[in-house]
């Protein structure tokens, strides 16, 4: 029997969504202050208006339930699932007012892309975008990369009476510290420290290559946020190619790798427990997977007429591999080169790398190394059980924050999410093909959207078909929540609208 939402549940869900919407009005202060500092008066008026709209909307939602209550699991799932789309709708308002989008749906697409750290953009004329609007895009990356719930919890927005249900509903499993609020604050602190350090280094490089100090600082900050949060938005339309700097590319590669490692492992390294880091199943899977795929990619690229040169292969190829596996979406080649100059083998390898993604508990998307590792371990279990006598009990373990056994429940969860990812990749590809695009392009784009990678061959652009745009929007949303939470929410909403079966016949008897 499916759980239904009652009116009481709707009021509580509305109340907590109102809390998050009010938080977004607070976060709009960042681009507003940027606009005032840079004397961009038109964007300033837009952000001021959006602040007012979010204050009204958030307050109105909070009126649905005056007293605060503890969330149960179903309510937490709904709040988490709906918060991404509700906040994206609010975030799209100033983007649409900027005049760089054809319609509100395009702005909503970028809002979802920013919050889910996909990084694909339909924005027109990015090079003439105001500093305030650019700042807002990267604020979305920062908030979305950490997680809306994580940020809200770290600010104590949900009060003291909050359980782990919200945290877990956002596909977060790592517990850095026993207290959830302390965990979220630690995650935010780690992120800020890394971003500040990276900003300083990249700023120096940008000034060295001839940029103005203000532009150098702002673009460095945005690159650092996008790199560590594995977002993919770039300040200029040429992405990382714009800077023609090997130094910046190296720093960004380091950031992307750091961003794709679990926050728990970050905390372990900071505590000095490096052995835990190297024994972890995700790190080992990452090492094997990256080594194999880089070899395959390099071998395939070596047959290309234009990228067979060693320096070109190393610089362009390695960067693209790291950008793909971390699901960041930075490009140091053009989309045209990706489609025409890369060999089909290299192209397909990149697609597979994006599909698997990074580590669980990081800012990366994709199927995740932990699931791939667990599925590989379960294959080992099956083989051992086949070879072992009937009376033998086979146990295979792995290291992930301690020693754990490969149990049927863990394998079931990994296989379920793995299957859902594959199905979504296929559905997105079929929708792209149905809209007339080449199969390889459609598959690549579908994988990029679902894994929140954001690399694009050009299908995602202004004027794309509305049906395809909505499909990709759903894929980004589903990929960020890793399907289960979103599917559960959709089923509960549908069931809630279905009328209950009347048992009149039985009552008469």
């Amino acid at each position, binding site marked *: 029997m499916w759980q239904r939402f009652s009116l009481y549940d709707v009021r509580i869900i509305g109340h907590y969504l109102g809390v998050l919407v009010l938080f977004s009005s607070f976060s709009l202060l960042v681009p507003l202050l940027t606009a005032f500092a840079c004397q961009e008066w038109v964007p300033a*008026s837009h952000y001021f208006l959006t602040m007012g709209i979010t204050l009204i909307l958030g307050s109105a939602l909070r009126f649905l339930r005056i007293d605060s209550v503890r969330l149960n699991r179903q309510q937490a799932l709904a709040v988490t699932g709906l918060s991404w789309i509700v906040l994206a709708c609010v975030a799209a308002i100033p983007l649409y007012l900027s005049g760089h989008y054809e319609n509100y749906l395009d702005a909503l697409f970028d809002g979802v892309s920013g919050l889910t750290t996909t990084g694909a953009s339909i924005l027109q*004329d990015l090079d003439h975008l105001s500093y305030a609007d650019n700042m807002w895009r990267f604020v979305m990356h920062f908030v979305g990369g950490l997680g809306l719930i994580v940020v809200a919890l770290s600010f104590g927005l949900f009060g003291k009476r909050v359980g782990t249900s919200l945290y877990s509903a956002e596909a977060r499993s790592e517990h850095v510290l026993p207290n959830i609020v302390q965990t979220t604050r630690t995650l935010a602190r780690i992120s800020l420290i890394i971003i500040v350090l990276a900003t300083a280094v990249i700023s120096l490089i940008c000034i060295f290559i001839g940029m103005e100090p203000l532009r150098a600082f702002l673009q460095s900050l945005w690159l650092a946020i996008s790199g560590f949060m594995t977002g993919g938005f770039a300040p200029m339309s040429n992405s990382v190619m714009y800077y023609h700097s090997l130094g910046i590319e190296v720093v960004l590669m380091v950031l992307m790798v750091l961003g794709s490692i679990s926050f728990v492992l970050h905390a372990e390294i900071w505590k000095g427990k490096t052995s835990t880091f190297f024994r972890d199943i995700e790190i080992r899977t990452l090492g094997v997977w990256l080594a194999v795929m880089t070899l395959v990619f390099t071998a395939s690229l070596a047959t290309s007429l234009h990228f067979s040169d060693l320096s070109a292969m190393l610089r362009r190829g390695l960067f693209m591999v790291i950008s793909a596996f971390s699901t960041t979406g930075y490009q140091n080649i053009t989309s045209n080169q990706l489609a*025409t100059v890369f060999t089909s083998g290299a192209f397909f390898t990149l697609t597979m790398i994006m599909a698997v993604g990074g580590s669980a508990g990081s800012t990366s998307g994709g199927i995740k190394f932990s699931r791939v590792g667990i599925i590989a371990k379960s294959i080992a279990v099956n083989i051992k059980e086949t070879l072992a006598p009937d009376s033998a009990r086979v146990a295979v373990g792995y290291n992930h924050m301690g020693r754990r056994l490969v149990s049927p429940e863990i394998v079931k969860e990994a296989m379920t999410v793995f299957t859902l990812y594959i199905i979504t990749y296929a559905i997105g590809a079929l929708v792209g093909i149905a809209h007339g695009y080449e199969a390889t392009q459609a598959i690549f784009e579908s994988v990029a959207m679902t894994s929140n990678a954001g690399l694009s061959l050009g299908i995602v652009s202004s004027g794309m078909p509305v049906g395809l745009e909505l499909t990709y929007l759903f894929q980004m949303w589903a990929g960020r929540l890793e399907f289960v939470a979103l599917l559960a929410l959709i089923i509960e909403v549908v069931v809630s609208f279905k009328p209950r079966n009347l048992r009149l016949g039985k009552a008469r008897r």
Partner: protein
Amino acid sequence: MIALAAFRRLAQGICRAFQGARGAQPSAFRSASGIQGVQGAQPPVAWGARAASGCRGAQDVRTPAFRMLAGCIVLFLLTTCAMQTAFAATGSDREDNSVNPHQLPDSSFIYDTSILDLSQADSYYNNQTVQVVGEAIGDRIDADPAGEHCWIVLASLDKSANANITVYMDKAEAARIDSFGKYGTTGTVLRVRGTFHLACTEHDGLSDIHAEQVSLIEAGKQSPDSFDTSAFIPGAVSVALGLAMLAVFYLMRERRR
């Protein structure tokens, strides 16, 4: 025309020279074919020779005819020489001459193309000389801080195209750019002619144009935002309303406790 007129006079002169008498029929062919039928007439060759040698008995006709004949021949020769000289000077202007021996061999073609086309180019344009027009945007990035080259990004003038191309050019050329496009600024519009590389071997596979000639088409423009108080009124009203609602909410919550 001059040659035709000269030939006509020559023919008339020859005709008179063959006839040798006043009142004879002007037709040279009749004269040539009907010589024996005319009383006192002589064979045309003899007559022509006698005419050419200026024989007695036909002085009134021979001398002017001879002079005319000689004049025509000279005129014809002069005209022919002049025409050959004229042809040599303007040979390629002649519409009916498809070969110009003075054209130098050139293996590259110049494609006057758009930035959008180049952003979607395949190997067809690779290593070809292209010419594009675009707006300089962003910054001048030094290719080598101690060197003489830099990177400029040219954006398509059609903003909906969302296309741009990277140009590798001399710093001296780039110094002529008065502004770079960004918010509130329209950058200098340039025409760049150079060699397009789909994946430049000199620059680790980057897609770029190595500029050979840069021309300024239009100077940049500044259009900064002006502060308009009325633009902030809707925001102020909505913020005030939102804060009021929030205050009411917290008041109601306090009363319930």
